[in-house]
């Protein structure tokens, strides 16, 4: 059976580039192209592992110069505390121009997923906040860390994804994208979302983090954490509006596979406290990474609907 035969590594030509080298070169080309073609690019920084890889690639693209654009974090107000402190330390350490944007009005009105449901909550705190933030600063291109392997509708996303004046995506009318020749022309008010990690897989991201020694939020590593245990779900104890029933709160050795808002991001039971262990877990794991996110499963094709409205 051909697939299970490991290659004879010594017999491979030395000049050949590995898939990670190829992906890195492609991503750097995208960063440089955007920084040169747009007036006011920004990198959307979500603090997660994909953003961490994106940040490293941006450093590489402009080395020995600084990253020539700011970072924007769209903060829903419900991110884990560990994420926020990680973000602030990193920005200080790397001397990053980090901007934070929140939908303060919605938060003041008490928006949360329990009160509104996840769809409306995401709409206000993510999509609306993102569009307002981009408009407020006048950014004309925004880097996002989305990958095509994450979800069906993302498999069709361009690397340069055109958004109209309302920030919306029209999946039926995407610009053809050939070779590495990206069309960066837009009219005033229009913008482009750029996905330099389009061709990376979840395994590629982890492997690159390992090889490059990229710092990530400790929530990714397993340790004893206080969790609400409900059926198969582990909900981190963080926000007071997430109520637990008697006996539901337990200390569980667990970690997060992807970082979102604390009320809507389930943890998993895990012993993986190093990156190689996370990778080992990943390759033996049987379900795709977004399966733990409540929001993608609200409704058939829900990610596609959110994207049309302007979500990443």
């Amino acid at each position, binding site marked *: 059976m051909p697939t299970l035969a490991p290659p004879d590594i010594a017999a491979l030509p030395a000049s050949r580039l590995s898939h990670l080298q190829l992906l890195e070169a492609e991503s*750097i080309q995208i960063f440089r192209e955007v920084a040169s073609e747009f007036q006011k690019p920004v990198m959307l920084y979500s603090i997660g592992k994909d953003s961490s890889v994106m940040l490293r690639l941006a450093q590489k693209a402009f080395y020995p110069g600084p990253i020539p654009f700011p970072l924007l974090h769209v903060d829903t107000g419900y991110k884990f505390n560990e994420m926020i402190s990680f973000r602030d330390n990193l920005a200080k350490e790397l001397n990053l121009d980090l901007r934070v944007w929140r939908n303060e009005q919605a938060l003041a009105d008490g928006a949360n997923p329990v009160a509104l449901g996840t769809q409306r909550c995401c709409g206000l705190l993510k999509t609306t906040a993102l569009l307002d933030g981009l408009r407020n600063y006048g950014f004309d291109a925004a880097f996002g860390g989305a990958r095509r392997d994450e979800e069906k*509708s993302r*498999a069709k996303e361009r690397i340069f994804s055109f958004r109209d004046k309302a920030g919306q995506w029209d999946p039926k009318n995407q610009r053809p994208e050939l070779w590495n020749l990206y069309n960066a022309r837009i009219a005033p008010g229009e913008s482009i979302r750029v996905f330099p990690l389009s061709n990376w897989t979840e395994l590629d991201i982890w492997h690159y983090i390992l090889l490059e020694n990229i710092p990530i939020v400790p929530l990714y590593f397993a340790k004893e954490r206080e969790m609400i245990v409900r059926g198969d779900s582990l909900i981190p104890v963080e926000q007071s509006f997430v109520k637990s029933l008697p006996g539901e709160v337990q200390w569980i050795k667990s970690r997060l596979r992807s970082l979102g808002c604390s009320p809507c991001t389930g943890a998993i039971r895990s012993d993986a406290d190093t990156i190689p262990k996370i990778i080992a877990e990943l390759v033996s794991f049987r379900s795709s990474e977004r399966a733990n996110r409540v929001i993608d499963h609200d409704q058939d094709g829900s990610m596609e609907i959110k994207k049309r409205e302007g979500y990443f």
Partner: protein
Amino acid sequence: MPTLTPIEPDFAIEEFLHAEQQKDLLRFSTAGSVDDGKSTLIGRLLYDSRNVYEDQVRAVTGKTIAPGAKAPAIDFAQLTDGLRAEREQGITIDVAYRFFSTQRRKFIIADTPGHEQYTRNMATGASTADLAIILIDARKGILTQSRRHSYIASLLGIRHLVAAVNKMDLVDFSEDVYNTIVSDLHTLLGQLNPDGNAPSLVTIPVSALDGDNVVEPSTRTPWYSGPTLLQHLEEVPVWTEEATAPFRLPVQRVIRPDQHYRGFAGQIAAGTIHRGDTIVALPSGRTSRVASITTFDGDLEKASAPLSIALTMEDELDISRGDVISIAAHPPQHATALEASVVWFDATRLETHRPYLLKHGTQTLPARVTRVLHRTNIQTLTDEAVNSLGMNDIGVVEIESTRSLFFDPYAENRASGSFILIDPQTNATAAAGMIRRSLGTATAIHTPTHKAALLSVHTPEQATTLEAALLAENFAVVRTKLQSQPILRSLLSLGLLVILEGIPTEHTTVGLELHTLEADPQSPNAVAAFLNHLRAVHILPAQKGIEEQQS
């Protein structure tokens, strides 16, 4: 499913990561519509090579068990079917990218629709592919759709074609049926590539539905001894071509954090560069040597396509975004008038003499299509005389740009032979182009391989001898007696070797670097010694014989 399968205790993560790090990447495209089994084939490839998650399989497994079956059927096609609009219409509209890997390789599939109205999506998917899978229904033979896909794959320069002769289960795995199709395919490829430059073709009899010869060899095709589809995908060599072509770097950006560093950043489009190599910057034609190859991970001694790097030069050259840095010994062609194949994308038809923006490498410049030579009828593969091209048409046109393009023909180099046309009114990507040839009289210009320099020669006899010696080596030389600094500066800025005859005044040459032939006018070797001096200070390149050995 938040509960984990426990990690197997003997799982050797270090070994796994080491193997993972050695994997290379193969990009391939597929084209086809709903009834020819393309989605089923890809779904089967992903499922049998264990690249599908359980939650994804659950989502496409039927609720009922068919009579005679042991378990509910898995709808493989649904594994790769995307957008809501497509699900409603039951067709694949756009290019979808899929990822999977085996122990040897990572794969990126550009999965494209097969109908004629989606020719543009097929071209998009093919543009970055190393290999194309052409699907053929064994019952039907080569239909228009397979013909179209083969044509587009050849046009877009894919070097490896695999014909998957599918639905063999419906023709009782007949060797005769298969052989007829294989023979027709070879005839077709010969037609598509009359110049004899046809891509390699491998044919495989498969049943995507049952899995025969997709991942596992089939017991139902004892007459077939070739590889399974996956085996072939794992073994086809892809990494050899780009690194051996002449070096090209389209400059994306000048990185200049302070006055001590000035790096020309880009992704290497072709070839290999070493520290110390002599390069020529185009369009200026100025030459220099590579002082360093910069990356975040440290300087490199050499770098090959398609790495993203930055180069610093030994001399201060005025290079900016849109320029091309080439190995001096093998510069690209240049022209303002080109013949190119184009695939028209836009709903608005091509208009000749209307301005479009042409993006080639990292430069964008105004251009016009001056003439449409013909359109290719993809059904019959014949050329039709037309005045314009509409959406999904493929044709050959003549294009004029306002400035010179430095290019290689697409057949030799995908990266420096490709361009897109943008409609400046709507900003739509109107077309993709593949340069066939220059329409200028000289296809290969003389690109200076020397640096500009001012050569002071006192006597007319010496000037004549020196001029002749330089011209004999094809250098661009101009000879003048004018003692005018502005004129000398403009000649030098053109990249010329300027022979200044007579005794130069200080007023003329102040601030200019002067190389003086100061020898006994009687000495027969004075000019030869002067040429050696010019080589020693790198104004002239090393002598031809030596250079050819090096390159």
